[in-house]
């Protein structure tokens, strides 16, 4: 059974992730690249300084000359990043598929804990709940962000993001289990609480990124996420149905 859950989650994530990566390649990444051209020297660094500062030699490591290291890995600056073009696209595709697998396994786990199977019949509902939990609710406080836009402290934003996702997701699980009036009240409170507490506020600085890029980015990323979640939920449910039917048809004891 565990194998069925993992197989369904991973196949659905692979398909939904690859589709999403394709949309990202044509509609999202161009906006990120465009925004990066506005990132000024005064803006945030990607941590180059931190890398230099962190550079310590572990005890016992032979001293090395940095010139040699640079020569041996010619194209590697002080901080590695995928090269623009194929390499960057490949990494983005991989990261998107892995994130898709992460989301699929998390909703698979929730379905196990809550004892609500993900099926073809309710897959779109799972997708809608996933979209609201992991995309829409966090974006309601932290709008999709382009490189170069002013933003609050990273850790504070990550904390708020995670807290919002947990609270919103918990509300959906509760509503799926019971429609008692107390449950509805608790769910509303759970969904509203992160927004009443409020997301970390970005410093009031002028953005390096033109407004039309930022609005386009917000709309396209949310739209892409909606497609991702609809496909993931539906496909996950379809595969669950398929594997369950296959297991049931297998003679007892034939599968370890």
């Amino acid at each position, binding site marked *: *059974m565990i194998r069925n859950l993992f197989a369904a989650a991973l196949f659905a994530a692979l398909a939904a992730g690859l589709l999403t990566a394709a949309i990202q390649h044509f509609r*999202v990444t161009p906006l990120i690249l465009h925004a990066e051209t506005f990132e000024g020297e005064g803006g945030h660094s990607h941590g180059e300084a931190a890398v230099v500062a962190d550079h310590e030699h572990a005890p016992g490591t032979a001293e090395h000359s940095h010139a040699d290291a640079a020569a041996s890995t010619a194209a590697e600056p002080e901080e590695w990043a995928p090269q623009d073009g194929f390499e960057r696209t490949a990494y983005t595709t991989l990261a998107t598929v892995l994130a898709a697998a992460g989301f699929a396994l998390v909703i698979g786990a929730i379905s196990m804990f809550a004892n609500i199977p993900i099926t073809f019949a309710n897959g779109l509902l799972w997708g809608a709940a996933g979209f609201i939990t992991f995309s829409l609710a966090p974006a309601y406080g932290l709008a999709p962000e382009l490189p170069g836009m002013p933003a609050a402290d990273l850790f504070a934003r990550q904390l708020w993001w995670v807290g919002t996702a947990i609270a919103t997701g918990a509300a959906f699980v509760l509503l799926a289990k019971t429609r008692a009036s107390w449950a509805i009240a608790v769910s509303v409170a759970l969904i509203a609480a992160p927004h009443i507490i409020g997301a970390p506020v970005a410093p009031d600085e002028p953005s390096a990124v033109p407004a039309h890029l930022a609005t386009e980015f917000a709309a396209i990323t949310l739209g892409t996420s909606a497609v991702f979640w609809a496909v993931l939920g539906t496909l996950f449910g379809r595969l669950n149905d398929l594997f369950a039917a296959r297991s049931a048809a297998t003679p007892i004891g034939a599968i370890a």
Partner: protein
Amino acid sequence: MNTTINTTTAVSTSLSLSQRLIAGVLALMLGLTLLVGTGFAGDFRLHNGAHDTRHAMGFPCH
């Protein structure tokens, strides 16, 4: 898993509580590891490799 002591029928729909808990914990651990790695980890290699995905999926990035 390999303890197929399920009573003959309906393997498909009703899982025992312990089966669900084991599957859920395993899936949650792997899923969260993947999400932390792609969406949240501070390591610059993970950050830069997953950079465009983080922005595209709405994770806080910079």
